[in-house]
C-alpha cells in the first residue's frame, strides 16, 4: 500500500466538501505534508489531528497505509 487515507469530520468536512480521500504517500513525511497536499490553505487554527485513531500533531510522522484525520475541536456530551 503506497497511499495514505485522509479523513475529515464535522465543519472541516463541509468546508472541504469531502469526507475522505487517498493521497500518494510519496514525498510525505509528516502530518503537515499531508495537509499541504490536500489543501492550499494553511491548517485552520485549533484543528485536531489523529493518526490511526490516536491523537497526533502536525510534526507527527506518517507512513504509507496510515489513516490521518483532521477535525475541529470536539463538542460532545
Amino acid at each position, binding site marked *: 500500500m503506497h497511499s495514505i487515507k485522509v479523513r475529515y*469530520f*464535522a465543519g472541516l468536512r463541509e468546508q472541504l466538501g469531502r469526507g475522505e480521500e487517498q493521497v500518494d504517500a510519496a514525498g510525505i513525511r509528516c502530518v503537515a505534508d499531508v495537509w499541504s497536499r490536500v489543501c492550499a490553505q494553511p491548517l485552520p487554527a485549533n484543528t485536531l489531528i489523529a493518526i490511526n*485513531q490516536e491523537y497526533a500533531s502536525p510534526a507527527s510522522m506518517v507512513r504509507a497505509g496510515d489513516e490521518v484525520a483532521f*477535525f*475541529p475541536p*470536539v*463538542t*460532545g*456530551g
Partner: protein
Amino acid sequence: MTIRVQKDGFDPWRELAAYQEARLSDWAGQYGATAVFIGSLRDFNQGQAVSGMTLEHYPGMTEGYLEKVSAEARARWELLDTLLIHRYGPLLPGEPIVLVAVWSAHRDAAFAACRYLIDELKTRALFWKQESTPDGLRWVEEKKL
C-alpha cells in the same frame, strides 16, 4: 466497564436498572455509592431556539477514546464498574444524549470519577454537534472548561 455509542434513543433510567441488575448483582453490598450524570438536548443554546441536533462521530476512534478514559478513571479511583452510553445521529430536544454511571464503595471516588468522565467526554471525546436553529444549521463551538 461498558461503553456503547449508538444511534438508537435510550431511556437512561431503564438502562441503569438493567445494567445494575445484570452486572452488579454479585457486588450488592460492595458499592455504597452510584454517581450518575445524564446529559439531554436543550431546546435553546447561545440565545437561539434549537429544534434538533445531529451528532457526528468518528467510528472506532470515538469508542477507543471512551475506553481509554474509562480505564484511566478505574486506574485513578477505586471503582467497581463504569457505564457510558452516548448517542450519535439525529436527536430531538429532551432526548438523552449521554449517560455516565460510576459504582464505587465510597461517594468521593464515585463523584470524582463521574465528573472526570463527563469532563473528558466534553473536551476530548470525538463528537461534533450540529444544531438546527431558526437561522439554519450551525456547528456548535467548543466547550471551555
